[in-house]
């Protein structure tokens, strides 16, 4: 059957995510205004052509801060998902492929870890290591391992006795080669949508933690701690909170559409 590579969700998701990611990456090098420049004469300006998203209580340009803060949020989410997916895949591959007592022990530990709601586990780790952007990556990275491990374990276990794996084994391929060259590519169909969901959970978790004041802390800006700041000015400058929050929602929405599109594409192939 002919494989249909693109669908509406995938296109819309990629365009939306692409624009936002480009904006946030650009924010690492250039912003229309300096994100930290204060201007006492331009406090709480509503959105205009000079200040696209208006200004905050120090007269700082919110659009520039969103570009930069978004960059922080994006980097944290990507780093988190890299740690979670890499280690989770490793654990899942080992337990799923070999099974046995290691499998049982690790899966019991996994069950215990999933007993903590993810934000609670992240808060627990933060309370142990302290706030800051690197600790947020560490905490969330650890939090995301169990879910990836579970998903990947099922995949590797189901591939263990498939014919082409058996024949690879008969031809003398080593365990490592079987797992990386023969099995891993065949798990992509599950891994890719899991990555989009994980990315979104990471963005939301980072935003929540920074909003609570125990994630990314000032002077670093992230979309979460900007919302914290914005809430205190809700009466005077509602656009600050609304536009910042909309950026988070759009980023998650875009990646969610990509995930939806990936799943739809696979369903159509079947």
């Amino acid at each position, binding site marked *: 059957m002919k494989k249909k590579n693109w669908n509406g969700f995938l296109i819309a998701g990629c365009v939306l995510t692409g624009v936002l990611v480009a904006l946030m990456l650009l924010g690492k090098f250039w912003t229309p205004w300096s994100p930290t420049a204060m201007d006492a004469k331009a406090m709480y300006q509503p959105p205009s052509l000079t200040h696209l998203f208006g200004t905050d209580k120090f007269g700082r340009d919110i659009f520039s801060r969103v570009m930069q803060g978004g960059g922080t949020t994006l980097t944290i989410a990507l780093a988190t998902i890299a740690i979670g997916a890499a280690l989770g895949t490793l654990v899942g591959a080992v337990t799923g492929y070999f099974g046995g007592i290691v499998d049982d022990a690790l899966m019991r*530990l996994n069950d215990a870890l999933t007993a903590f709601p993810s934000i609670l586990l992240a*808060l627990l780790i933060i309370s142990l290591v302290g706030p800051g952007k690197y600790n947020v990556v560490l905490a969330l990275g650890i939090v995301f391992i169990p879910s990836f491990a579970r998903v990947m374990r099922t995949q590797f276990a189901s591939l263990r006795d498939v014919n082409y794996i058996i024949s690879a084994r008969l031809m003398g391929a080593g365990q490592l080669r079987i797992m990386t060259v023969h099995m891993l590519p065949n798990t992509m169909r599950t891994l890719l949508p899991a990555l989009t969901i994980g990315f979104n959970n990471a963005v939301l978790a980072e935003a*929540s933690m920074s909003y609570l004041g125990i994630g990314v802390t000032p002077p670093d800006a992230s979309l979460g701690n900007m919302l914290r700041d914005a809430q205190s000015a*809700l009466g005077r400058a509602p656009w600050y909170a609304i536009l910042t929050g909309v950026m988070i929602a759009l980023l998650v929405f875009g990646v969610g559409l990509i995930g939806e599109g990936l799943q739809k594409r696979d369903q159509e192939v079947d």
Partner: protein
Amino acid sequence: MNYVIRRILMLLLTMLIVSFLTFLAFELVSGDVAQTKLGTEGTPEQVAALRHELGLDQPFLLRYGQWLGGFFTGDLGVSYYNPQPMWELIGPKLGVTLILAAISFLLITLISIPLGLLSYRLAGSPLDGLRTAFNQLCMAVPPFFIGILFSWFFGITLKLFIPEGFPSSIRANPGEAMTQLFFAAVCLSIPRIAMTVRMMRSTVIGEMQKAYVRTAISRGNDRRGVLLRHVLKNSLTGTVTFLAQTLAELIGGSIVVEQVFGIPGLGRFLVAEIRALDYPVVQTIVVILAFWVVLAGTVADLINQRIDPRLRLGGAK
């Protein structure tokens, strides 16, 4: 062995592991509490005396056993900063959080099950794509951002409640308190409703393709009847499991949403105590919340086992 007994034993085992992990984590990080409490002023003798008084000179496993024993007999230990019994500190806050979770859970169950069944009927129609996109959008908006929007719109603009003006206790001003709890519950529910609808929709679509549905329809039953009488029942076990996870996630979500509305619940207290580095309190709250999650999962399994005879006979998965 009887399934119920086995499940309860497993519950106790998981609780044991969870509490042990938490105790271990705090043990590793809190360092020498006696030294911290006395500061640099304390002489080695004073530190040793306090360590003895707090029982810190006992072996680790013994202290874990004592703490766990205390946990179930109501002796939760003492906060570093507040001499009140811990239960008096935590109890009322736990109550507020439970009310919030209960309202959200009610909203989610009452809205998402009918919507899930309805959304099946859209499958294949041109509106379906739009519905999927809307569903994704609802999942994308963080609950605390919906909360901020609500504070602005319903609080500041429409003046239905006072933003961050939660009464000191629910009894002091029940009307205001319940209004705020209701709006907070709506914020918590929206993404979760979207997720439940999505899950139910795919389950129902999967069930509708099965042979028994085709048989039922070929025997002259109408689709609607089959959907309500057969398919709903068969989709129920998955839904119950999902709702149990929801109950768990609500606790996580309420940590953040309580902050938005300034609701004096367990989550907000937890965040404050984390920032104050009050480890005994944090440890207790974490364990209470984790027990809650494990318990929800167990109850879901037991309910599923009651409604689905296949699970009772230990046959098909």
